[in-house]
């Protein structure tokens, strides 16, 4: 994949690896990352790897172990994880590669290293309660006899406010990646 070729520099300088990065990732939820022995069972089950993303589970883990933070931040692969959790199911060392992916995302968000697509997703989640939501689908839904909005958060203003209140309590709100503050509830989840 051409994307991969661009993302991987010619020679990786291990000396430039960030010391203590593994500890940070561990603290962010990937508690058992050091148990990984790169057996690649997770990669064999990973749809991301099949789709050709350069940093799939196993490779993300190795890059983290080597402290190659910048390299991971320069690439959008980690955002392609579909959370299918197959890696976690098959891992023979109980590393929980999905948690590693999540921890890496936490680092990426903190460093504002997230793709536009992800920002749109977060904004959409905050606005309507869906990371992926097609407002254009309203007409079609009506045509086939469905309510204009699906019977989820988007159709329930109270639920949406609850969700927004929750999101406002997270690190996302402090980072200011998307505008927040619509819920009008600052300190509690009660709406």
């Amino acid at each position: 994949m051409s994307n991969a070729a661009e993302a991987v520099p010619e020679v990786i300088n291990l000396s430039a690896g960030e010391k203590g990065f593994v500890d940070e990732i561990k603290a962010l939820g990937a508690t058992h990352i050091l148990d990984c022995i790169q057996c690649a069972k997770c990669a064999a089950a990973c749809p991301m790897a099949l789709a050709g993303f350069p940093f799939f589970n196993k490779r993300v883990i190795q890059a983290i172990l080597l402290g190659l933070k910048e390299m991971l931040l320069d690439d959008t692969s980690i955002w392609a994880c579909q959370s299918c959790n197959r890696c976690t199911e098959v891992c023979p060392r109980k590393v929980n590669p999905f948690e590693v992916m999540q921890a890496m995302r936490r680092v990426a968000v903190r460093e504002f290293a997230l793709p536009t697509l992800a920002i749109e997703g977060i904004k959409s989640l905050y606005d309507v309660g869906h990371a992926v939501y097609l407002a254009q689908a309203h007409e079609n839904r009506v045509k086939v006899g469905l309510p204009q909005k699906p019977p989820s958060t988007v159709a329930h203003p109270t639920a949406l406010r609850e969700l927004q209140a929750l999101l406002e309590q997270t690190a996302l709100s402090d980072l200011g990646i998307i505008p927040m503050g619509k819920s009008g509830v600052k300190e509690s989840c009660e709406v």
Partner: protein
Amino acid sequence: MSKIGVYICHCGENIAGAVDIAEVKKYAGGLPGVALVRDYLFMCSDPGQDLIKQDIKDGLVDRVVVAACTPRTHEPIFRKAVEDAGLNRYLFEMANIRDQDSWAHWHDKQGATEKAKKLIASAVAKAALLEPLTDRYVDVTKAALVVGGGVAGMFAALDLANMGYKVYLVEKKPSIGGNMAKLDKTFPTNDCSACILTPVMVQVGTHPNITLLTYSEVEAVDGSIGNFRVKVRRRQTYIEWDKCTGCGACVEACPAKVPDEFNEGMSNRKAIYIEFPQAVPKKAVVDIAHCLNCAKRTFGTQPRIHSKTGEPILAPCEKACPTGACDRSLSYNPDGEIIELNVGTIIVATGYKVMDKAPFKEYSPQSPNVLTAMQLERLLSATGPTEGEFKRPSDGKKPKTVAFISCVGSRDKNHHPYCSKVCCMYMLKEARLIKEKYPETNVYIFFIDVRTGGKDFEEYYTYCRDLGIKIVRGRVGAVDELAGDRLRVRAYDVDMAAPVELEADLVVLATAIEPSPGLEELGRRLGITCGSEGFLKEVHTKLYPVETPVKGIYIAGCAQGPKDIPESVSQARAAAAAAAVPLTAGKVLVEPLISEIDAEKCSGCGLCVPLCPYSAIGMVQHGDKLRAKIDPALCAGCGVCAAACPSRAITLHGFTTAQIEAQIEALTFSGGDLNV
């Protein structure tokens, strides 16, 4: 006419899968002298052997041919069956239709079947001419020799000594202890090597049944099981060991400096030295090649007299020696002395050598900061050149980044094609020792496989990973020297699928485990061969792991192949048990398959005398002429003399000329193409 019984073994599918048993059976039935033919799934099983016994008891057969696996493992079993049934055990012949036929020609069933027929025909032809022979027994000298004073040799010696046998322990170096004495810690428990080894060394040194012969080498061995005669050369120490107390005063006085072998050349020792502080025996030796002969005091000369004081001018070492052990007026024999030993059994435990870094030009071996793992071991050891402080050799600074490179010279067809087995573990151990003591150090291990097979080893590996030691799959391609004593390690990270490079302060090469220098020569003296990798070969990998083809000689430890300490000790104790069997029995069976000279036919040419590898042939007076005579106690039945004798005066019993010729005839003249 003899009544030969032919018994064809299927060896499960091993033989029957390639050889058409029914066809071979039919063919064998038609061979001259064959009274009956039987086949069975496993001829060596109880029911299989019962077939043979019953036929003998019923008087149906008086000669037995078993066509099966190999005489190497199974001849004794069938001989015993024949004997149990009341027949002489030497009226038995084996046709090897498995190792030499079905296994070798698995994909040519037709050819394998034809070859089986030939091999059986040949065995039958010989069987017809077999004659009964009588076993002999020889008395056993109740003493043993252990060659090599490392951890394996020491445990073998201790076990035999504790059983009550006299043991001679021969060690090349001035002290016992071997490679283990050089180690800092030992995996998988991280025991301090010296702490667990020193008491064992002391036990060996003080055991009443053990005679320690250090600074000595085996020069020649003759005789056979039960009665080996061994010549040991005790090298010249130039010190009277009876008087030397190991105080070290001479060492302090000596001005000469020589790279210290014990510290892997990482520091200097003196020309007069004690190998290491915990040495057993703790005695000094003079390295005569590097002795400066201070005050013109060469050995064997009288001191000059000081013109003013009238006192003799002594060399610093002899001046310092409080006991007079260092006396340079004595004229020592530079060749040392020969000690002759009589022993019943021998254990070879000569250990290993760590491969040198010099051949690996791509890893900058000229850099003082590129070390072998054994050098690092000394660097980490409290008794080492830095007293355990972790400093890099070039500038004495503490390394911030250390890179280990695995499989240096191992799994490498240019050097050693085998896996050295202990490197993964010792790299992890050294990495762990560094990381535990200096957690801020960056430690990288570049590997092609991490092999941690063994009790508690995987746990050890996992623990090392948990410490944050970075493990990169990919053999290093190059180590370049950079300015400021830095080193650049270049590799390909298979897991990242990208080339990587690393700037390191210290690079450690996990160099291969090699056979000890001179092992092949020692093997020749003992009559044991080395495998292609240079280690001594055991008789059978699985069933006879400590036995050698020479009866009464056993092997233990790394002389046989790379091993860790637990394995070396286990094998040493196994070898001691095996070596004790003949000593306990007090007598050993000598097969009568030896050569004999017909003095009437012998022309006295003497050709056989120098040919005999066992020095078993001498010339004796026979009537008015000198004739060759074979000492049956020494003859090993190799047959060299019988093949060389121009008068055909020598008979190798069990392999007579008539028998061999009958075999050849059966193989070559009985028709059909032999597809081999």
